[in-house]
């Protein structure tokens, strides 16, 4: 009996607090979009860094391949997620999805040919994704101020 009373006393305020907090948390499409762009950029950077480490014989080729294949898989997932974000401006989301597709292609190509020649292009795409992410964050901040 005491236990049940304790449970009600403990859980009721917690449930009340959650009910008060949840409505304050509106979905934030701009922030979520920016995070996806940053995730894609992070994978691009990880691929270039791992390839450099492999060339310096600091990590084995097997590990570099694992990172590249995981990155390609993740970028495909990010690409479809970005393409499905209806609340984001269609032209910018199409462009971001294209960058992800291009990154995926370059990484797959690198995996097949084992050549690091595409590092420059990957870096370029990474920078574009970061710029787009910063723009999305700024737009979101301006929106919240209004």
């Amino acid at each position, binding site marked *: 009996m*005491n*236990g049940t009373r304790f449970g009600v006393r403990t859980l009721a305020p917690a449930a009340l607090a959650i009910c008060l907090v949840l409505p304050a948390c509106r979905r934030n499409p701009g922030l979520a979009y920016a995070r996806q762009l940053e995730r894609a*950029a992070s994978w691009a950077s990880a691929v270039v860094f791992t390839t450099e480490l492999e060339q310096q014989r600091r990590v084995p080729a097997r590990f570099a391949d694992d990172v590249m294949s995981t990155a390609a898989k*993740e970028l495909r997932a990010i690409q479809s997620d970005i393409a499905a974000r209806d609340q984001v401006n269609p032209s910018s989301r199409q462009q971001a999805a294209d960058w992800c597709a291009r990154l995926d292609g370059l990484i797959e190509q690198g995996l097949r040919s084992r050549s690091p020649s595409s590092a420059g292009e990957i870096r370029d795409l990474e920078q574009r994704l970061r710029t787009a992410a910063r723009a999305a964050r700024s737009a979101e901040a301006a929106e919240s101020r209004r």
Partner: protein
Amino acid sequence: MKSLVKVGLGILTSIGGFLEAGSIGTALQAGATFRYGLLWALALGTICIAFLTEMTGRLAAVSHHTVIDAMRTRFGVSFQVWPLGAQVIVDLLVLASEIGGASLALELATGVSLRVWAVPVTLIIWSLLWFGTFNAIEHGVALLGLVTLCFVVAVIELGPEWRAVAAGLIPQRAPADGAQYAYLAVGILGASISPYLVSFYSSGAVEEEWKTSDLGMNRVVSALGMGFGSLVAISVMIAAALVLAPRGITADSYQQAATVLSIPLGRWGLPLFCASLAIGCLGAALELSLDLSYILAQSFGWEWGENKRPAEEARFALTYTIALALASVPSLAGIDPLRLTMFSMAITVVALPLLVGPLIVVMNDKEYLKRHTNGFITNAAVIVIIGVAFVLALLAIPVQWLAS
């Protein structure tokens, strides 16, 4: 001399056993995303866990009760159901994260999928529990865990700007992505203030038959062991801040983060990272499996003790066997261990008041502690830290989940 050896061994095992999936994962992401900006959360969590372990060691030494045992006799079984249920859920989630972390470390080292490694890893943990003794498990794996000191060596090699590091120990205004900052702070606190460490520590103290004369050793081991242990976690965060953050690598997965030691330690970096992750997770998985058996056995009054043979305490052995089987499912399903870890740490913080609140009541009860009850500072420190963590979790978790 004998007690000095005991203190030394206690501190060494605390250092070796400090790093596990939660502390590695949260420290890597925090360092890679906010550099030194979340060091304060790690410091706060360490202070709290040092107080909590000291308290439960004191309870065991003075009253010869474990935390769970004392809570059951103090509040009754109908009360015990709430904290017990919460701790079983939290322990199972964290155990799944540890099995995932160890399996992924083997994937990084061999290239063979973590799904393949999940079964052998689970079997190794089960075999060690079935055939090993408490001391062999506690000291053996934790001493192997000293490999995690490679992160400290890496930081010395990288040479951070110590003034900036020190500034990170003071809470600062949340940066642009406040929700992620708060969510990571919650994750760090959840990883540091692990409820299983508290109940495991007190069960171990009862198994080792601590007495009032061990109180001094308990205090030294809690403070220095946890303090030095957290230095290793701080080193993980600093290394991530110096190697991953400047490259814009946010450590969304262990694959991205595994290169964190490759700049300071060269070709040894990746094997040492894999060894640290695998041994840290293995040690924590052993402690978690045992903890699940301990808390259920102590709540229902079964025979318990890792020093007994499985035939003498069948329900105790059956509990960790079932727990391991259940916890291996997420890895077999291929769920990303780092995401599972972050989720588990957040849930841990939400459950903390339910687990720590009753302990504070017991620790102020003269029937159990006689003249060794808690002082004002201990009570205030633990209540404030747990309160802050809980409020932070209630605010950050919904925001983070809605934004991701």
